[in-house]
């Protein structure tokens, strides 16, 4: 415990999740501090993605609740959770493959500005100069500006992931959830994604990252929680986690590279 009480933006309190007889998550108590990057690591099948799905409202928890900045998220629709300021990057990129890359980035910006539903039939996308500029800047940042007119479905897998990240970032979410944002990326792409995530780290956005790649985790995380068999077995600063014997035993196989 630090001396000044940290501002907890997200609190998963006493969350349990059973799938039939399988206990996917038990006794989860996770607190995410505002402005920090919090990594959740753990071996395959530890329940990392389930935890993320519970937070985002894709899967209802069997018991317990997730509270975001004073609002209970449990039972809310995905779009409502997004409108509260939570965006998510998926494990397999969820983009709009039939739309041009530029429109992929503009659509989330419209959702941020106009809310969950608006019939703005008499405006045109082309005359939305401000949002277009913002989207083009974002595409410049992630290096996809040259492909802005192409259909997003024609992008490479790594580019799709970066596009999805851009789609989340343009919403300027208060909390960004990343489910293995660099999986399937080359080392070069991974490093550029780390750089991008570092850049937004300074903007004060809170991030929760699920990641296998220890290089990514230790380059980005301020806090790490270790999940094993549906339980959080350790939580703390990266250095503490690295040295925690239980973590080394359960997950890191005795040593950390």
């Amino acid at each position: 415990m630090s001396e000044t009480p940290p501002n907890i933006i997200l609190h998963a309190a006493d969350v349990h999740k059973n799938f039939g007889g399988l206990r996917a998550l038990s006794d989860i108590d996770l607190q995410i501090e505002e402005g920090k990057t919090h990594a959740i690591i753990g071996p395959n099948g530890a329940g990392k993605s389930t935890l993320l799905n519970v937070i985002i409202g894709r899967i209802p928890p069997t018991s317990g609740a997730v509270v975001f900045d004073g609002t209970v998220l449990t039972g809310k629709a995905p779009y409502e959770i997004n409108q509260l300021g939570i965006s998510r990057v998926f494990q397999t990129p969820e983009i709009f493959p039939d739309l041009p890359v530029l429109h992929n980035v503009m659509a989330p910006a419209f959702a941020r500005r106009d809310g969950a539903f608006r019939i703005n039939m008499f405006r045109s996308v082309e005359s939305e100069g401000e949002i277009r500029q913002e989207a083009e800047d974002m595409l410049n940042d992630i290096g996809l500006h040259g492909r802005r007119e192409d259909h997003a479905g024609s992008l490479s897998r790594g580019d799709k992931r970066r596009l999805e990240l851009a789609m989340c970032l343009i919403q300027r979410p208060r909390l960004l959830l990343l489910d293995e944002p660099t999986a399937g990326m080359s080392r070069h792409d991974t490093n550029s994604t780390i750089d991008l995530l570092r850049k937004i780290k300074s903007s004060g956005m809170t991030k929760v990252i699920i990641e296998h790649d220890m290089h990514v985790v230790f380059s980005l995380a301020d806090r790490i929680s270790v999940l094993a068999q549906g339980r959080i077995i350790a939580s703390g600063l990266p250095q503490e986690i690295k040295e925690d014997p239980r973590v080394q035993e359960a997950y890191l196989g005795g040593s950390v590279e």
Partner: protein
Amino acid sequence: MFSLSRKDLAALAVFAVVVLTMPLWLSPLGAAYPGLMQKFAIYAIFAIGFNILFGLTGYLSFGHAAFIGVGSYTTVWSFKLLTMDIVPAMIFAVITTGVFALVIGYFSLRRTGIYFSILTLAFAQMCYSLAYSVLTPITNGETGLLLARDDPRYLDAMFGAQANIAGLPQPTFLGSSVTGYTGFYLCAAILIVAFYVSQKIFASPFGMALRGIKSNQTRMNYTGFNTKPYMLAAFVISGMFAGLAGALLSITDPLAGAERMKWTESGNVVLMTILGGVGTLFGPVIGAWLIKYFENIFSAINTNMLNNFFSFLPDGLQNVVVTVLSKFVGEGWHLTLGLMFVLIVVFLPGGLVEGFHRLMARLKRRRGTPGGVTSVQPAE
């Protein structure tokens, strides 16, 4: 607010010219009479509206003919009860269809994919059967809803405009009759407006959201869009277009029958849209014209006409050619249309509009290659 991009403006101008000069370019094709050209315009409106739902959101409704029927009945009732003027008739038709679409859409949109299609089909068949049975007092059953000389027409009576001439009253637009070419130009003008509205929707953030739903509904939800009302809005707008088309059918020919709601009519508009090009601006219009042309002109070609046409061939050959071709025209027009549909779906999944784009691209490439500079594509 009402402006269009330069490209859309050019498309609208071209479209307007093509529609208004229909009597000129349809005459060599033998279809330049107002009654048929009205149908061309009306079904184009129907298909444009259908495309807003199917083309943008990807939800395939198999019950859109119900809205044509509702629009028709409302129009005739407006003629019978209120006035022979077409403006209130059209307004009422669009509003009533909108309400119908809201109810049908609310329930149908609880399911996606094939279940959505089946639900819309079920609703449309229900409307069709009800029109023949329980709702006979409103629809006049098999006879169809007709005008009568002694209809009350309260608004007309109030303004003392009761015409006492012999025969049935005719629909009027601000006092002038809308038969013949006037009727066609009325439909043509409304078609151009409908095309413009569809252009506005295509280019708007609303249209972008509908395309997003077609492309990836999961991402739409996680991006903060509440997709349900978007779908419902698209469904209602598209139903209103169909209602307007139904109103125009009853305006140009003041009767309304349940056969307009038959499932084959719902299927027709699907064919029109796919044939022309799903999700394109021009596609549904082209598809509608093509099918209506086949239905009315191709089906009227008989053996005599073929014999005349091929009379330059030697006798034996002429007989063979005429015998073979006669299977494809006249009553066989469905065969030609079916073959064409199969060929287009297999080889041009994007419809005729895609075919046109491919052709243009090929021409451009051919013209561009010798120069060597114009056709350089960025490396992938």
